[in-house]
């Protein structure tokens, strides 16, 4: 494997695209081979690899390890996803010491809140984008101020709470409304 450019910042969208594209070319063939050898299909390999990149992204906020060798990390996550999704035996998969330390988010393979998520994506797009930057992307206040063009970090933070209340009220209306039907 050739070295992946470690200087790319996964939190910056333009750099992330480059990093992901590099990882795709370098690592996807390894994951595909792993999946193919165990009887999985191309689509299985694709789904697992896509999920592995998403999990790599989520972990990047609090684990520095991924920057040392994102390639190995992605392969490790992919193996864990294979075990979880296809109930394969951990021992047969053969995880190395580094891979054994990797965990995947408990809620990752559970169903998502699709109906409400779609609704909020439609009705509150701007607020959702801002809140995602805070809560999913874990960007700093300073980065959020720049990305969303706020004059001060204070106004970014104030808007965050306004958005929480707005979105929470929509959820409230919806959950009250649906109670009538249960």
């Amino acid at each position, binding site marked *: 494997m050739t070295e992946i450019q470690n200087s790319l910042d996964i939190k910056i969208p333009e750099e992330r695209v480059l990093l992901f594209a590099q990882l*795709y070319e370098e690592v996807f063939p390894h994951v595909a081979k792993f999946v193919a050898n165990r009887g999985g299909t191309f689509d299985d390999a694709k789904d697992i690899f896509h999920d592995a990149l998403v999990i790599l992204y989520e972990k990047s906020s609090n684990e520095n390890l991924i920057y040392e060798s994102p390639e190995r990390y992605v392969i490790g996550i992919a193996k864990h996803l294979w075990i979880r999704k296809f109930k394969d035996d951990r021992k047969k998969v053969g995880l190395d010491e580094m891979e054994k330390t990797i965990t995947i988010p408990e809620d990752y393979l559970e169903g998502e809140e699709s109906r409400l998520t779609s609704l909020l994506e439609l009705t509150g797009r701007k607020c959702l984008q801002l809140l*995602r930057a805070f809560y999913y992307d874990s960007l700093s206040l300073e980065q959020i101020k720049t990305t969303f063009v706020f004059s001060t970090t204070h106004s970014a933070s104030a808007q965050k709470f306004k958005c929480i*209340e707005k*979105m929470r009220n929509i*959820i409230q209306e919806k959950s009250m409304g649906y109670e009538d039907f249960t």
Partner: protein
Amino acid sequence: MKTLRETKEIDRYLLGKMSIPSRLLFEARLLIDPTLKLRVEWQQRLYSILKSSGRRQMKSEVARIHYQLFSDPDKHEFQTNVFRLFSKK
């Protein structure tokens, strides 16, 4: 403004950022204030929606890269190498 203060408190509670005494106090309030309890639940639900939505967005970003790599004629070798893995029975 009272609601803003409460929203901030709920945020700190859900993110586990409260000190132990504040958390205990907050949990005591949850027991006697059903409205507060519901707001906490809705806000928690919002946070899990943010996660779902973030994951969705990130997946579509990755899907675009996949599409580009598998439709680019310059990446022919990469494509055949991967497909070959799945062709042998």
